[in-house]
């Protein structure tokens, strides 16, 4: 049935935007403030350009392997061992992301509204949504994200409009923040903020054509970069450095400052809808792709039996960190430092190897995807 599922450009772009911009609602603004000070927005612009450059390289090489995902290319390069190796790397990468984000979102919801509720109960709610969506498959998740993205974007714009009175241009200075070296040299590994693009490298069997793949990647990075830049910018404009490195929930803090007359004073809870919807889609996507990649790697017939066991694993891993700050530390010091290796490094090396092999062997055999 998967060979019959085909997504359009809008749907795929929406999916990738959700994956890459959901971090805006957790710790991303604080992270860029820590890395680049008042120049956080410059860092994001730089990283967007860098990501576009890296994606252009990858997409050029992908042209020779239309309709094949990264696992198929791993099999082409290294046979069964290559396929399993690539698959396991992706699974481990996603098993790091999903529990981390699950824990972060659950902690934040607990802080906002459910302070007396056990963290496991809050995580269970997210888990129910993830499991239900994973059972239905990638098609409904993608279509639903196409419906939700405009609503999330509208809510984000509302936040921006609401906090305009708090903007202070002097907060942008010094313009280069923590320094050119920190932004343009040491900031390169932070291209991991676009690690969500790795989903696109698993999506080719679901896409119409190579053109769809290329344009989707390009537009999703561009739009995500735009939203992340604006998010970093408004955070810096509203809250001066170094105070901006103190808040655990930057966007929530910004939303709390919205004050429209006497009636609309504490409306930040409304944005819980948007953030939670975004989190549900994000987590569902990763749960689905963990089981899908597992199924494809080990050539299983069905992926649905894997959903419940993997969900239990995700739940268990999410409970390992002692606190939210430990999760944030793991994310910023480990994940953001090394995720670019899996997202950009691995596809580039793999595609280069595949191209070399292709030149020696000839055309790629026209196999059906399993």
């Amino acid at each position, binding site marked *: *049935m998967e060979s*019959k599922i085909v*997504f*359009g450009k*809008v*749907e795929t772009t929406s999916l990738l935007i959700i994956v890459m911009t959901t971090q805006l609602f957790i710790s991303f603004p604080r992270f860029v403030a820590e890395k680049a000070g008042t120049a956080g927005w410059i860092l994001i612009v730089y990283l967007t350009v860098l990501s576009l450059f890296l994606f252009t390289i990858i997409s050029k090489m992908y042209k020779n392997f239309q309709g094949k995902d990264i696992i198929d290319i791993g099999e082409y390069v290294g046979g069964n061992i290559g396929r399993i190796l690539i698959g396991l790397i992706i699974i481990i990468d996603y098993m790091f992301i999903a529990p981390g984000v699950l824990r972060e979102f659950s902690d934040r*919801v607990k802080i906002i*509204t*459910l302070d007396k*509720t056990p963290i496991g*109960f*809050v995580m269970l*709610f*997210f888990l*129910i*949504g993830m499991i*239900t*969506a994973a059972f*239905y*498959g990638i*098609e*409904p*998740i993608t*279509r*639903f994200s*196409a*419906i*939700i993205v405009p609503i999330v974007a509208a809510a984000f714009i509302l936040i921006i409009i609401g906090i305009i009175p708090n903007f202070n241009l002097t907060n942008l200075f010094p313009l280069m923040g923590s320094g050119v070296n920190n932004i343009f040299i040491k900031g390169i590994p932070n291209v991991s903020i676009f690690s969500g693009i790795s989903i696109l490298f698993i999506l080719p069997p679901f896409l119409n054509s190579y053109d769809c793949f290329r344009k989707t990647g390009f537009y999703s990075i561009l739009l995500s970069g735009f939203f992340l830049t604006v998010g970093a910018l408004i955070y810096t404009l509203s809250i001066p450095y170094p105070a901006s490195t103190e808040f655990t929930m930057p966007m929530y803090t910004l939303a709390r400052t919205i004050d429209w007359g*006497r*009636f609309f*004073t*504490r*409306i930040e*809870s*409304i944005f*819980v*809808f948007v953030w*939670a*919807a975004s989190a*549900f*889609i994000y987590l569902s996507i990763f749960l689905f792709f963990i089981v899908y990649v597992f199924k494809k790697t080990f050539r299983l017939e*069905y992926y*649905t*039996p894997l959903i*419940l066991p993997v969900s239990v694993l995700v739940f268990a891993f999410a409970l390992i960190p002692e606190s939210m700050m430990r999760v944030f530390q793991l994310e910023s010091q480990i994940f953001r430092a090394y995720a670019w290796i899996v997202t950009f490094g691995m596809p580039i090396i793999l595609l280069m190897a595949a191209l070399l092999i292709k030149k020696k062997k000839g055309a790629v055999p026209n196999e059906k995807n399993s």
Partner: protein
Amino acid sequence: MECLADLKKFLQNVFLFKEPEEKEAFILEETRQEKEELIEETRQEKEELRSTDSKKGGIISSFFSPKGKKEDESDELEEVSKDINKNLEYIKKTYNYPDNGDLIIREFKVVAKDKNLDAFIVLFDGMVDSNIVDSHILKPLMLLSNVEVKGKEKDLAQYINNHLISHSQVKMTKKMNDVIEEVNFGGAGLFIDEIDCAFACDVKGWVQRQVDKPITEIVIRGPQEAFTEGLRINTALVRKTLKDENLVVENFKVGRRSKTPCALMYIKDIANESLVEEARRRLNNINVDFIFDSGELEQLLEDSTFLPQPQMLSTERPDRTANMIAQGRLAILMHGSPFALIMPITNSDLLHSPEDAYVRFPYSNLFRIVRFVAVILSLLLPGLYVAITNFHHEMIPTDLLIAIESSREAVPFPSVMEILIMEFAFELIREAGIRIPGPIGPTLGIIGALILGQAAVAANIVSPILIIIVAVTGIGSFAVPNFAHAFSFRILRFVYIILAALTGFLGITLGIFVHGIILVSSKSFGVPFMAPLGPRTSDGVTDKLLRSPIWKQENRPDYLNVQKQRKQPKISREWAEREKKKR
């Protein structure tokens, strides 16, 4: 023990993996090649089904087959006999004559080609038009057969058919079943001695309701006709609206014993062929004894039984049916039901009122926005109230918060219990109000609600603000144009209340997410239910949530994959173009 086995099976299905069935759901195909492939597959399936049906069980299975007369055992007279006594005997036995009090068998004689032949006519009293029977069948046969007719037919049956029966709808048939079916449905069966065929005459004349105003879909602007229980009247109502020679009305019989006539209506050069084929396949493969209403037919045809939202639109308006058929959809009409079934539909179609097409652009869009807000209120308002009062107090302005808390101070129940009590009471009043006859019904409902609400507030069972919440929720559900769609909100509202009581806005978001995922994955006759929002289709759809001006609606809905996408040119108001040229 059976219950335990069922429970075990249910638990196994939930916790252990159940291999999916190999049957593939219908997908509305776009290209001709895909359509042809699908049609070929379904034809092969039909042939396989027929060949398995024809296989009889072996010796062992015959030991376990039910003893006694089987329905298809050959005691039947399959073909009309030349001996009229045999035919008469068979008819009497089939219809349990004389136990059946309304069956009439009139024996008489016919003179044809110098022969004095015995004949009889069989019909049901009350179902036929006796004027037609007397004037156009009995009279010519009994009286006018004595008049010399210049007929050259050698065959007696042809001679009688051509010269002696002056009725437009007569079918000569050699099969007994054809006659029996016709008699069962208000026709008359005519048998004549020495002729091995019978005459099945369509002389329906039962008393039925006349074309009246719609009851469930009342509009201010627009036609005021509604379907009745007669199939031919209904198909005529649609045909006289469309007046298109390509409008096809295919006849089906649903129900092995009731053989209820149904009609599948579509426009041949617009509707997607694979969609028509799929509708035919589903109608031909319903295996029930009796069927009584289009509501039962809808349940037998729909894709998902457990989805709260309906997957077919039921309407009693011929104009709306014609409008839907003109867009490329199909309509199924059933004898005995004043509701037509339209398929495929999407979620946005369920929010459209029949009046939207007839009122001007600003009003129709305003009504749609109001309806959309009504849907949100109907579904989410009680849940939002529970979430805000329990988890998100900070959202309420302080003055309002004090007012709410002071009114709730004396109420012993938590807000979720209050809501559930009042919602249940409202549902009780609504349900009871339908059953009370005459003009007392709605009045009693209103008074009951007012008194009940006021008494409940006075007794400190509920707070006053809750009455407003429940009332607004109820009014919101009445604003939904499709009553089946409104039913779904009545059910889901309770789910959202419970989710909100558990975790506030997070619970409501979980509900919206799961609800959205289920809706997006659902299909209505191969069309995704949330089209054109998910999946996104091309910009040909100008009637999603808001409606474009009529002169801008150039294309039919893209998700229907119709044969003719374009329904009007870019400049449909040619008079405006001519005005510009004059200037």
